[in-house]
């Protein structure tokens, strides 16, 4: 028995015993334990295996910087790999497993790597595995991949829920230790809106493990009274279990709250984790300081722990890390740990001090060896002794645990996330946060104040200053009197000389001193090079423990100051954050909003099979009884429209109401074709270009009154066109008198197409819609029988006699029902996107399959539409560039297979007959293709070099991806009714 539960003490609830499992073994802990403290209480020293050499490893810290004690908690789809035992709150039923070992934690075959370690130095893989070339993927890499990694991600659907929230405050206090508590109190009392966030499940920070008293009360009592007061203030929010992981521009902080990670059975109505974006006017970083590990031979074995962590386990959790503890220190903190451990009845085997003249006082009767170095440790999976060297003499001292204390590193991670570099302090022998402006102020131990009194004062002072800065008046606080304070100074020790075993710098990634030396020797001495070459600091702890020592070693080996070496870059996330929390509720079907047409219900009733189209769900086809494939339904719908009449939902088209005396002028500049003289009551097809002369979007625009136009856009670019128009109106031509608003959602819009469309529509419309009264491109307000006002447009995408009818969205379904009922006698059918697509290809009409952003109006056969007379329109000037008018540009043509049973697929490329496939010989591509039920064979629209000159030519439709080739004849893209007789009927 080494580690053990102390007979008394700690903040755990000894009355609340919790059952948990580690690697299948049943264990007990108490409420208030972390998994780590509970494992130690059960004398489970060995908790994991390292990344590269699979060395046995134990718990090193009592917090989020833990490099070794990574476990998988939970089972199956609910397992959380790489969870730090040191921050995992114990709950009844917790099921933890060790990682990166085979077959078991105790006997791990991967440990053989340790024997090979001379061959596996930093960057060894860059130097080998190159021969033969094919062996990398087939042999070497699979072995490396299998050996690498830590926990196992199951990649199964996670049944738990996550959400995101916004919060706003005057002051965000990060860390609820002594500094943060005082700051929150001062700011809260002054009336600021305060958020106090702490990553621990129990606020209090270092106070929870503190034995000193403040103004005569215990640190724990101070914590409780402070928290009680904060809870009573309505303007203060305390957020435990909340880690601030990132500091972003404009003082927005990212935080993750572990809402239900500490319960066995999470409640369904509450998320397990919640992401917070906290917009803070000011923030105070009171994140404390991290104890620095010491780099000495054999420093990685289970039982070697941070001295401060031992103190935390004893004072806060009532757990002794060993029966007989050796302390290796370079400063006062080691002595303080020794004193606390001794007070709990643990034996202090020795204090090994690297300094020669320490004034620190050891507990009574404890031997201190000054000017000494630890060169090795005894034991394999547990410590049995420490080998000390002093003045050339070696001595082995028996112990079962080693506490190391190498000084302090302020936790400045967040302050350095936005580009500012940490600043070396020669006095404090550490890196401090740079001045990052008034948004984020660093306080307490994070600012290098290591005494408790100093922290309490700094938190108070800085919060008062912030309050004043924000216009609040804070009450001055009396200086707290701390009893039992010790001197926190230390003398930096980057490497304990004379190591007789590997001296690790980065525990998890197995980077030891010699790796750093090798990196330097090979020219990778820049701190970023060294990191990347050795992988130091790239493990899940992101160098929280190892970074500073790597810097110190690089400096020491080159005989330069750590200031010249610097640190690697601090970046989010302070501690790792789950995808789930960052994604929130945006998952699965709820990943993006669904837009539903007002005719959705109508389509459903008529058997629609829906397809997503942007955010919309649109009917793809309407399956009828007996139809087995989409093609059967589509062919029927097409023929029905060509022969009778069909109804199609086009409500998803973008619709824009444009008003104003300059509306016509605005449209005239917006479209490449003229709009100035569009008569009232008429619709016109419009082509919108980008400023670079390529087609952007198309649609129809109708003039409803002299100063009121109604535009439709494609569904895909409805939002884009609106923004483009707003840009034009606001930025290009702010003096034009034009206003517009989207009416997409106001109208249910339907196309009624087919030779019998007029028959059906006239039955419903009061007004005369005969060809004479309402000819092609007529547009206007009509009254439906019964009195409903609607808009009617004589426009056609299918090439048939067709109308588009717009009615207020709420009435849409009833109107569509009425049309279907009226049309039944005429063989009406509902038709979907598939049929619409066939109909328009047959007619040679374009969509974004043709207008793919690389096509000019002329490419698509609209060259004559582009106004040469208009002085200006968007896209005019650049459309005359050489390359946009070159004779060999690809132009839109039709294709029909020479053998009618041959198929053509969109995406196929075009080759001259007999030409070898090559990029040079590529003649173009098929943009749209379908089976035409009207013609009985496949047809296609394609872009072909100088295509319009090549009607009648035979061309190879080359679809290597499908392994298919067909010969097709180049023809005009209008396959049906080229004379527009049907359209004008």
């Amino acid at each position: 028995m080494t580690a053990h539960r102390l007979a008394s003490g700690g903040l755990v609830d000894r009355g609340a015993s919790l059952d948990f499992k580690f690697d299948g073994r049943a264990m007990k802990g108490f409420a208030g334990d972390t998994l780590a403290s509970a494992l130690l209480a059960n004398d489970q020293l060995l908790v994991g295996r390292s990344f590269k050499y699979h060395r046995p490893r134990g718990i090193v810290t009592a917090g989020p910087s833990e490099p070794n004690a990574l476990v998988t908690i939970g089972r199956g789809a609910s397992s959380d790999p790489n969870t730090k035992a040191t921050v995992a709150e114990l709950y009844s039923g917790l099921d933890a497993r060790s990682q990166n070992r085979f077959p078991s934690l105790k006997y791990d075959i991967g440990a053989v790597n340790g024997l090979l370690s001379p061959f596996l130095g930093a960057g060894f893989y860059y130097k080998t595995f190159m021969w033969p070339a094919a062996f990398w993927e087939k042999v070497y890499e699979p072995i490396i991949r299998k050996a690498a990694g830590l926990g196992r991600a199951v990649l199964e659907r996670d049944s738990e829920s996550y959400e995101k929230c916004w919060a706003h405050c005057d002051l965000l206090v990060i860390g609820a230790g002594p500094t943060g508590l005082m700051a929150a109190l001062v700011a809260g009392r002054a009336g600021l809106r305060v958020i106090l966030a702490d990553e621990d499940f129990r606020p209090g920070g270092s106070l929870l493990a503190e034995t000193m008293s403040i103004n005569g009360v215990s640190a724990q009592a101070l914590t409780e009274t402070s928290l009680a007061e904060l809870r009573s203030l309505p303007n203060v929010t305390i957020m435990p279990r909340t880690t601030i992981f990132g500091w972003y521009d404009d003082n927005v902080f990212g935080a993750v709250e572990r809402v239900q990670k500490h319960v066995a059975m999470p409640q369904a109505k509450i998320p397990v984790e919640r992401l917070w974006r906290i917009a803070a006017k000011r923030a105070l970083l009171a994140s404390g300081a991290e104890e620095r590990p010491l780099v000495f031979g054999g420093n990685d074995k289970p039982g070697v722990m941070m001295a401060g962590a031992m103190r935390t386990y004893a004072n806060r959790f009532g757990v002794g890390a060993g029966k007989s503890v050796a302390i290796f220190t370079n400063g006062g903190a080691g002595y303080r740990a020794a004193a606390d451990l001794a007070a709990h009845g643990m034996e202090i085997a020795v204090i090994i001090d690297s300094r020669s003249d320490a004034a620190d006082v050891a507990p009574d009767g404890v031997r201190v060896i000054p000017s000494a170095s630890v060169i090795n440790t005894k034991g394999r999976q547990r410590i049995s002794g420490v080998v000390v060297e002093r003045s050339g003499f070696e001595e082995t001292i028996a112990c079962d645990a080693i506490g190391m204390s190498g000084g302090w590193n302020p936790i400045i991670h967040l302050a350095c996330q936005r580009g500012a570099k940490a600043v070396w302090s020669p006095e404090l022998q550490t890196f401090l946060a740079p001045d990052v402006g008034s948004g984020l102020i660093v306080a307490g131990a994070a600012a290098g104040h290591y005494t408790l009194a100093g922290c309490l004062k700094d938190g108070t002072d800085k919060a008062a200053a912030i309050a004043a800065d924000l216009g609040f008046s804070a009450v001055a606080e009396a200086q707290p009197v701390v009893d039992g304070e010790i001197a926190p100074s230390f003398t930096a020790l980057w490497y304990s000389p004379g190591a007789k075993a590997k001296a690790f710098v980065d525990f998890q990634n197995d980077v030891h001193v010699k790796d750093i030396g090798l990196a330097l020797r090979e020219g990778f001495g820049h701190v970023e090079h060294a990191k990347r070459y050795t992988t130091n600091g790239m493990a899940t702890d992101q160098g929280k423990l190892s970074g500073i020592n790597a810097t110190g070693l690089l400096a020491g080996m080159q005989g330069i100051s750590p200031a010249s070496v610097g640190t690697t870059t601090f970046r989010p996330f302070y501690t790792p954050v789950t995808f789930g929390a960052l994604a929130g509720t945006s998952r699965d079907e709820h990943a993006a909003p669904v837009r539903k047409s007002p005719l959705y219900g109508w389509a459903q009733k008529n058997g629609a099979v829906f397809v997503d189209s942007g955010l919309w769900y649109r009917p793809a086809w309407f399956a009828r009884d007996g139809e087995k494939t989409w093609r059967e339904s589509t062919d029927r719908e097409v023929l029905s429209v060509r022969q009778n009449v069909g109804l199609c939902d086009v409500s998803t088209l973008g619709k824009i109401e444009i008003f104003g005396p300059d509306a016509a002028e605005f449209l005239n500049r917006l479209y490449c074709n003229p709009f100035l003289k569009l008569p009232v009551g008429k619709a016109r097809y419009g082509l919108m270009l980008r400023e670079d002369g390529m087609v952007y979007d198309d649609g129809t625009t109708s003039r409803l009154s002299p100063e009121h136009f109604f535009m439709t856009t494609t569904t895909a670019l409805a939002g884009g066109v609106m923004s483009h128009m707003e840009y034009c109106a606001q930025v290009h031509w702010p003096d034009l008198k034009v206003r517009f608003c989207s009416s997409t959602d106001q109208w249910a819009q339907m196309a009624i197409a087919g030779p019998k469309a007029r028959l059906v529509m006239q039955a419903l419309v009061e007004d005369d819609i005969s060809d004479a009264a309402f000819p092609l491109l007529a547009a206007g307000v009509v009254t439906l029988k019964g009195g409903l006002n609607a808009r009617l447009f004589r426009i056609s995408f299918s090439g048939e006699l067709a109308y588009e009818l717009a009615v207020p969205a709420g009435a849409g379904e009833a109107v569509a029902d009425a049309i279907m009922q009226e049309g039944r006698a005429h063989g009406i059918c509902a038709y979907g996107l598939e049929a619409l697509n066939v109909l328009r290809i047959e007619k040679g009409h374009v969509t974004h399959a043709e207008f793919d952003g690389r096509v000019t109006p002329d490419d698509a056969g609209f060259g004559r539409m582009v106004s040469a007379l208009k002085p200006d329109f968007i896209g005019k000037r650049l459309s005359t560039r050489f390359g946009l008018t070159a004779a060999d540009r690809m132009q839109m043509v039709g294709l029909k297979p020479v053998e009618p049973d041959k198929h053509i697929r969109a995406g196929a490329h075009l080759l001259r007959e007999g030409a070898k496939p090559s990029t040079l010989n590529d003649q173009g591509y098929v943009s749209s293709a379908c089976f035409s039920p009207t013609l009985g064979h496949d047809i296609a629209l394609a872009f072909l070099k100088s295509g319009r000159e090549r009607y009648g030519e035979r061309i190879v439709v080359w679809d290597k991806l499908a392994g298919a080739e067909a010969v097709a004849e180049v023809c005009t893209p209008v396959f049906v009714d080229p004379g527009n007789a049907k359209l004008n009927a």
Partner: protein
Amino acid sequence: MRYSAFSIVKNALTGNVNWKPAWRQPEPKPYYDVIIVGGGGHGLATAYYLAKEFGLKNIAVVEKGYLGSGNVGRNTTIVRSNYMLPGNEPFYEFSMKLWEGMEQELNYNAMLSQRGIINLYHNDSQRDAYIRRGNAMWMEGVPAELLDRAALKKMLPFLNFDHARFPIMGGLLQKRGGTARHDAVAWGYARAADRLGVDLIQNCEVTGIRRENGVVTGVETSKGFIGCGKLGLAAAGNTSRVGEMADLKLPIESHVLQAFVTEGLKPAIDHVITYGAGHFYISQSDKGGLVFGAEIDGYNSYAQRGNLATVEHVMEEGVMMIPGLSRVRVLRSWGGVMDMSMDGSPIISHTPIDNLYLNCGWCYGGFKATPASGWCFAHLIARDETHPVARFLRLDRFERGYPIDEHGAGPQPNLH
């Protein structure tokens, strides 16, 4: 020192104290025949090929930070040649072929891993576009396969097949696509270039470009003036700043692209997978971290860091594509400064100044281009003529109306 299994054993047995520096740390000479500005992947590769393939002897690369400190060390390591347009595909395939022999040539294991890249599609029009792309690849002799939903399900069972907002219909596979260890590419080229006598000068920031009679004569740097016969700019996100020193007006905007890595995990994702209902892409490194990213933040930036809104958006796309990522923890995010061009395609080109050459516009796709970019840029500099596969990548293509716009998004860099 040649690297080999033997050299590792030999050095191990002598305590690993005999390894030599991978490259020298030279002080700049007064004059070089060619100076390349930018010690990233492209600059280092250019210097290497200038020396190796084009026989130049007196070459320097000047780098303001450390070698590989830019985008070559902060990308998502994807290598592929699955482009659609004739201006791009031959170039990227040339690059792919160079990748395939690079490690042996450089004597450096860049861990090229041709695990296959799969671009998912979610609707008919995306499928058609991928068919067009796949056939364009085949035209250039590049194998591609179109996978349907059933094939994908077998290959990538963890994708969201059952509850996707935007259902996965299939994917385009390039089996030769994959990943490479990004830093190693920079280091491999650096070491090989150094061995051919190229001076790699770190911590040497260019502060001015000296011209006499309209001809570049050298660069002012933080280490003093260095004369040169020809000057090649390969400064990626800092292209506009360097170009300005020679009064070049460029079709470039600098944007920040974030990338991410998760904690190390046992092998779970074998391929490189890109999402079609967004910009998300993901692969797993040999160390076990899932490496991923998506779109740029959208605003001009020279800061190598991004914002939370984009981070969240990337994660949303990730969970949309692979629901099981939900409990995986993201370890680190970082940002790179992208030289976004106006059509989304690169520029390897002459400039209006005779002995000044330009390599830029890599957007977020420069890593895969590293070898071909180096080769073609070296070709251009050494011979003063464009390499055939890079002949469309001219600077004047915008003015002349020959954009290479894979996305069809037009001259707005943040849409590419």
